């Protein structure tokens, strides 16, 4: 039986591989039904601004994002590669854990060009359940206020 820390680290790695493998339809399953997912910038967080770049409240909105990118949105083919740091885990009295981890996302365009697309941190609240850990809240805080065109895949 692995420790909570190992389980959480594995869970966060699996999330990244799911996205990097392009299995976007499986993305929302990492979240609780009413979870929130926010992509914002360090600048907005520091200024206490509620609007970032993406906000989903509930898995329905996450699934809509995926349907949109599959059938509505137009963009050039590319893939992401996440590299995440060791998560810092703070258990809470109710059994949930506040988890913070750093990430780098490289983007490879169909042209073959690979570059750093985003760096930042995940501020998560994870909840244990019968199927293992699930994300109750994920705030993706980008270091830069500038996004290179364009952001369509979940981070």
């Amino acid at each position: 039986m692995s420790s909570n820390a190992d389980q959480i680290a594995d869970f966060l790695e699996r999330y990244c591989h799911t996205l990097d493998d392009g299995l976007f339809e499986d993305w929302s399953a990492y979240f609780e039904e009413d979870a929130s997912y926010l992509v914002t910038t360090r600048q907005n967080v520091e200024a206490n601004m509620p609007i970032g770049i993406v906000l989903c409240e509930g898995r329905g909105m996450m699934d809509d994002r995926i349907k949109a990118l599959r059938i509505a949105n137009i963009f050039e083919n590319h893939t992401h590669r996440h590299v995440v740091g060791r998560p810092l885990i703070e258990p809470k009295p109710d059994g949930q854990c506040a988890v913070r981890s750093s990430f780098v996302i490289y983007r490879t365009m169909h042209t073959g060009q690979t570059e750093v697309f985003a760096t930042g941190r995940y501020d998560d609240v994870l909840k244990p359940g019968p199927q293992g850990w699930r994300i109750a809240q994920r705030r993706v805080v980008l270091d830069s206020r500038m996004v290179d065109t364009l952001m369509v895949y979940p981070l």
Partner: protein
Amino acid sequence: METTPCDLRWPAGGATRVPYRVFSDPAIYQMEQEKIFRGPIWHYLCLTVEVKNPGDIRTTWIGDTPIIVTRDENGELHGMVNRCAHKGALVCLKERDNKKSLTCVYHAWNYKLDGQLRGVAFQKGVKGKGGMPEDFDVSKHRLQPIRVSVVAGIVFGTFSDEAPPLEEFLGDRITAFLKRNMDHPLKILGTHSQMIHNNWKLYAENVRDSYHATLLHTFYTTFKVNRLDMDGGIILSEKKWHHISYSKRATLDAAAEYTSAEVHSAKYSSELDGPQLLQAWDGFDDQITHSIQTIFPTLVSQLTLNSLAVRFVVPRGVDKTELYWIFLGYETDTPEQEKMRVMQANLTGAAGLVALEDGCINSFVQRGTRGSDDKASFIEMGGKLAESNESSRATEAAVRGFWHGYQTIMGFHE
């Protein structure tokens, strides 16, 4: 020998033809800096809410030139070039700040908030040695001032003494609509920027292009969002440089709307799994639910349902442009209204569900036109003129309006 920009002859057809060379020629880019960005045009600088208090400082750009906006101790706004009068270094390094005076870090030249030099370090030398010459006079040095003027909470600036008064530059209808959306106690709800890989004019063109809206952006149709607001039109300013594109709720429903100002998410019934995205309320009684407004050359104001934002672009070279998004609400919003603005911000921005295609489409044009300096685009949807059309948005009238303005200010002739 390099060609000079003045040798560009505009193809016959006026604003219905745009030579692709204007998107990639560095000499034309330089000429735009002079004729447009340092010319008799008002440029977006910032919002008054960002420089609310004495000592507030906001840095920005007009074209390539770095700019400082300040509010002095008497509450007066000032604009100046962010370039020290000594050696030319940037004086203000932060995007936002609050200071009693401005000091260049290089040699500590110190300026009042209006840009006037107050003093320089070691003016009398050190221990009687060195120092400025006897005839050095601080009052003869300052940061280069620019004119500033405010409409609807927006601070504009110009290098030119010849720019007409701001409201005259904007025209009556443009000013009135800007005030409709922006003349309220504004509150910034979030900002970010997006690097787009195209010449700045392709964005200016794209945002005036109502022809592409439902063809390129298929989010609403894909999710069968039932929009009752498909009536709309295009209004061009008197000089055709600026425009408003709007869509209206069908008049049929107006009566019911007047009787209750309730949330109308039901009007946007759809196949969305997360329909809370489109919860909205009627902020105005003119039935306009979506609008986008441009101010020549680089400012955009949007009200998409209740998602109020200003966007502006800063050219970062001939084929790179930074697009800034500033999402807004009103201080008077209820928490529920603010929440709806927050949710609707998903529709636009760097990851906007309805509009993210605009981030890449302009680069497709940038790349598609490479090597075709002698070819031109064909812009005749809705006719050959740049005229308002208040019954249809299937027109490129506002795009022609932009190019009409561009040709005029740049002095390009057929």
